[in-house]
């Protein structure tokens, strides 16, 4: 009986509840927050970008991209060099020939 009464008492404790009042400066604070939100849009973007974590991440990404392009360039160059090799050999061979013929020709 007693426990039932306690619970009913607790359940009725909100019966005469009065309204709580917010801070008297609520409107000023809302306006301030609105102005801050407008101003800080760029700041938020900058702040999310410029943090030690993000700088490290961006540096890593740049290094990886650089590495990728560099390795591609090296591959391209070596492929080009391989292609150019026979031409170069042939060119050198041809360009050397006149001397050889002059040298070889008996005087």
């Amino acid at each position, binding site marked *: 009986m007693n*426990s039932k009464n*306690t*619970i009913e*008492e*607790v*359940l009725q*404790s*909100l019966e*005469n*509840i*009065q*309204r*709580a*009042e*917010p*801070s008297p400066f*609520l*409107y000023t*604070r*809302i306006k301030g*927050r*609105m102005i801050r*939100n407008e101003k800080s849009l760029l700041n938020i973007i900058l702040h999310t970008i410029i943090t030690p*974590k993000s700088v490290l991440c961006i540096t890593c990404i740049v290094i990886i991209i650089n590495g990728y392009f560099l390795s591609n360039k090296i591959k391209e160059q070596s492929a080009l060099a391989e292609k150019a090799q026979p031409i170069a050999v042939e060119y050198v061979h041809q360009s050397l020939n006149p001397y050889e013929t002059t040298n070889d020709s008996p005087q």
Partner: protein
Amino acid sequence: MLDLEFKQMVEKELIIELKRGDEAAFQALVSSRQTLVYNTVLGFLQNQEDAEDVTQDIFIKVFESIHQFKGDSTLTTWIYRIAVTSSFEFLRRKKRKKRFGFMSPLFGEQNEPTIEIADFFHPGIALDQRENASMLFKAIKKLPENQQIAFLLNKVEGLSYQEVSKVMNTSFSAVESLIHRAKINLREILKNLYNL
């Protein structure tokens, strides 16, 4: 009757001015609805600082999304809906923050302490009822969301079942049943809290 018509006319004017982005209209809206919003939020969050913060957010949200208000309900009902949704969003965010709190040292975030204040004393409660009300608020937090909304809007905000049904976008009988179930559950929770 005339009073109601006048109120509706004033509300219509207010909405038009708000849609135009009029600052005076916004100030009028804040001063006429600040107690309503703050009290609703306070009931759900049970923390005065958080309630003040979320109240500010709600008014900014109302101002920014007034163009989406179609007039299917009254402006007050619409604001109540935003207040309820924002309160639960805030609570979910707080819970998430607490759940992943162990990760914050890894990322070096300086968040506010997530330790929950054990007892909430509503400033509108008489001194002799403070302890009981604090216990009741603790029990309310353990209710399912729908029951919490119905119970708090009815008992703390003093809305009628009809008004609660409009805010919750549900039927009168559904609200009746929600409050009935809330009371049954509260009795059980209180029994456990008091070890009875």
